[in-house]
């Protein structure tokens, strides 16, 4: 199974890279699913197949704590992987059990130690993540979880709010009243106190859900958030071929079952999405405002060459005073504002549709 999947990835890469002119990649991210479950041999084969040089600026591998073996770490080292992102989600034993995680609190702590040692030798980085608001958390247990998490001193971490998606065990448990989400007020309070603790621990919130020590941002993810160009491999992966052209992925079934020769006709790997001026604009604003940097002055000029941002965004700036800033450097949400990203975006969309002529020539 994994062998066939790797074959497909390599083939997909071959087809896509014909249309993708950059040649060498700046960053590589192996994520989604569980690439760490691949036998090292297969991982090597994949790297060879994708012509990874090992000299790329940032190569990240996503792992689960239970699969972080010495063998895997050695393999990472030899392949040139220089960043590992590990999903631990919590350090609270009870919560981890409830989540149905394979790794418990101790496993997580051990894996973190291992990671720290692996990274410490060279100029490598690592990241872990924490889930906020899982059923069973209270304000105080959530803050304890965060404190212990911060005590691990990760160079980079992500903080996610739990989203209950349909057709999951969590969803059913909540629906059938076996579990209850923590009271909103408690979680908001935990969040407000938490953010203070994170900042006083010296982290920068450089994107809505991403935090790092000075200079240790995920370069790969920054490309998404700046709406850059990237190539995505895998069944459902999207690729940004060009500023106005995206490939969107196909289903697993089609991906794996298609006849390789038919794949060359490309249809089974992706569909084309052509983006108009409005799409590009909205996406650029939506993605850039996720980051603390926001839209730079240059971004604003290239997006709205004929309009003054202070006029275009006048209503937004008034309505979201204290949360959004427009100054010499550009347009961005401040630390409070980041928590309101969606709501601000909806207003921006409404105002652009109302006041901006998407047909003005660039």
């Amino acid at each position: 199974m994994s062998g066939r999947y790797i074959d497909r990835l390599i083939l997909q890469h071959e087809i896509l890279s014909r249309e993708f002119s950059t040649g060498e990649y700046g960053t590589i991210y192996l994520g989604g699913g569980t690439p760490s479950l691949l036998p090292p041999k297969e991982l090597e084969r994949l790297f060879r197949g994708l012509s990874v040089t090992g000299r790329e600026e940032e190569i990240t591998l996503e792992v689960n704590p239970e699969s972080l073996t010495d063998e895997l770490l050695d393999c990472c080292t030899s392949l040139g992987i220089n960043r590992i992102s590990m999903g631990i989600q919590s350090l609270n034993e009870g919560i981890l059990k409830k989540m149905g995680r394979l790794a418990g609190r101790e496993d997580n702590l051990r894996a973190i130690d291992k990671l720290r040692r692996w990274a410490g030798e060279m100029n490598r980085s690592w990241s872990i993540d924490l889930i906020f608001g899982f059923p069973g958390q209270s304000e105080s247990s959530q803050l304890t979880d965060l404190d212990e998490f911060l005590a691990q001193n990760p160079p980079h971490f992500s903080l996610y709010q739990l989203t209950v998606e349909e057709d999951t065990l969590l969803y059913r448990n909540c629906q059938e009243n076996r579990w209850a989400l923590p009271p909103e007020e408690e979680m908001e309070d935990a969040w407000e106190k938490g953010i203070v603790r994170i900042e006083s621990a010296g982290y920068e919130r450089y994107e809505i859900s991403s935090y790092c020590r000075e200079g240790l941002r995920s370069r790969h993810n920054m490309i998404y958030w700046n709406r850059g160009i990237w190539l995505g491999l895998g069944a459902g992966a999207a690729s940004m071929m060009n500023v106005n052209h995206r490939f969107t992925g196909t289903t697993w079934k089609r991906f794996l079952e298609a006849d390789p020769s038919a794949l060359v006709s490309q249809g089974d790997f992706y569909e084309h999405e052509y983006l108009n001026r409005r799409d590009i604009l909205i996406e650029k604003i939506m993605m850039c405002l996720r980051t603390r940097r926001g839209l730079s002055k240059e971004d604003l000029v290239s997006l709205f060459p004929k309009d003054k941002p202070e006029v275009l965004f006048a209503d937004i700036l008034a309505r979201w005073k204290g949360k959004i800033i427009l100054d010499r450097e550009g347009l961005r949400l401040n630390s409070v504002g980041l928590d309101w990203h969606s709501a601000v975006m909806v207003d921006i969309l409404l105002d652009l549709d109302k006041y901006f002529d998407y047909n003005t020539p660039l």
Partner: protein
Amino acid sequence: MSKEQEKVRNFCIIAHIDHGKSTLADRFLEKAKMVTERDFHNQMLDSMDIEQERGITIKSQAVTINYEAADGQIYRLNLIDTPGHVDFSYEVSRAITSCEGALLLIDASQGVEAQTLSNMYLAMEHDLEIIPVVNKMDLPSADLERVREQVEHDLGLDGDLVYPISAKTGLGVDELLEGIVEWIPAPTGESAAPAQALIFDSHYDAYRGVVIHIRLFQGTIKEGDSILLMHNGSEYKVEEVGHFRLRLERTGVLHAGDVGYIIAGIKVISDIRVGDTITGKTNPAKAPLPGFREVKPVVFSSIYPVDTNQYEELHSAIDKLKLNDASLIYEKDSSAALGFGFRCGFLGLLHLEVVQERLEREFGLNIVLTSPSVRYHINPQKGEAYYLDNPLNFPEPGTIISAEEPYITAAIITPTDFLGNIMTLCMNKRGVQTHMNYLDEKRVELRYDMPLAEVLFDFYDKLKSVSRGYASFDYEVKGYQETDLVKMDILVNGEPVDALSQLVFRQNAQARGRGICKKLREEIPRQQFKIPIQAAIGGSIVARETISALRKDVTAKCYGGDITRKKKLLEKQKEGKKRMKMVGNVELPQSAFLSVLRTDDED
């Protein structure tokens, strides 16, 4: 009478709601091969989206079909499918005036219901030949003999005349068509006489302008003729005339007895009045036809554009909608919270919802409607008594001697099993029983005097639920009775929102206030800050709820592959928000304004 005219039959299909009128019309269209199989869909004549979605007829719809009868002759049948819901009975009454006959449909398992009676009376007033048709004979629960008895006993019609059919399967439809030819008289009227055409409807076509729907009682109208609209003498030149097929079918000329349309380059929309008579300029009729009874709106509400700059657009949209909805009444209005709009009168809450939806769909407007109200009668201490339907104009309580509210006579037909439930419901709605009559051993007819305001709000739904759908209901406005009225203000974030104010019966006020606050809490989305919702009477708060602040979306992740999904989500939220109205610094969704009428009184 010309040979042609002898072969015309004008009839309408009338019935209680859902008894199968539009489905029967489908069978007629099929028999006449008016539609290809591919184009066919159920309830063809329900051509508006809202009709299809809600599965009910809202507009009467005329269509002409050719039918080859057993005698070998081709007959031209002009049929009008009518709505069954009480709110649209004005549509039925207008359809009836252009017909010589009516098919009165009765559901074979439901039997005679409230609107079966009321619609039959309408048809009788105009001396139509009534053919009783028992529909849905394919249902296992169909009981022809029982319904036949009801036809004789409740309706006073000849039970032997009944046509048993199934509009669904087509059973008995051929026999019914023969019956129509046999029993319904051909129209009278002389093609050589001065023209008299009754306008029974109209609509606005973006390309051709106003299309007038008429029944020509006397004379002939052809293209090129100069015509006069008799109510104001305005003159137009006929550009096109024809029949209603599923589309407009140009014929060049209409004769006495015809139902059809006229296009005459009408620019001034207000020249067109439903009920007016059109005559020829050269040989004008001496007097207009009788026209229609006046519409009496029972519920009032104001319509405002969400975007205050769209007032003019709203104005032109309402003018055009009025062409196709003669029962809509409106005049200019303004509100502190909402700017300029229109005060409108409706025939019921369903009518109100339909107007709202049509304005939005057909004209692409975003609008809000204010709390609906009935029309009260006020006796002030000084000056003359007057009517009042806008809560905003309610005077200081100390300055009035008394207030009166409209009452109706409700007629309810129910199986005896639910009698107890229904009597309790009516009592809770301040109803006073005036009459009770066992139609047979299983069914009772009840009459109640009740305040209209109680019936408008959730009476119909409640009636259906306490009778498991079996009770039917009809009403007519009776007059005014003294009442104890208070004005309830709704404060959102500390500010009274005039569009949400309403007049209520004092004893219900507290419960209503609680119900409204609760409903508003559900309807108003969270915003950046906490929002208190309060109901107040004369400055004192009677109910209160709080909407907590918007939940921050602190930590939703988003990487490359999520962009499309995120963007779609954003667009969806945007669409929702587009329909919201800024009132003070709070955004109120359209649904908030109308939610107050779906409010249960909280006990």
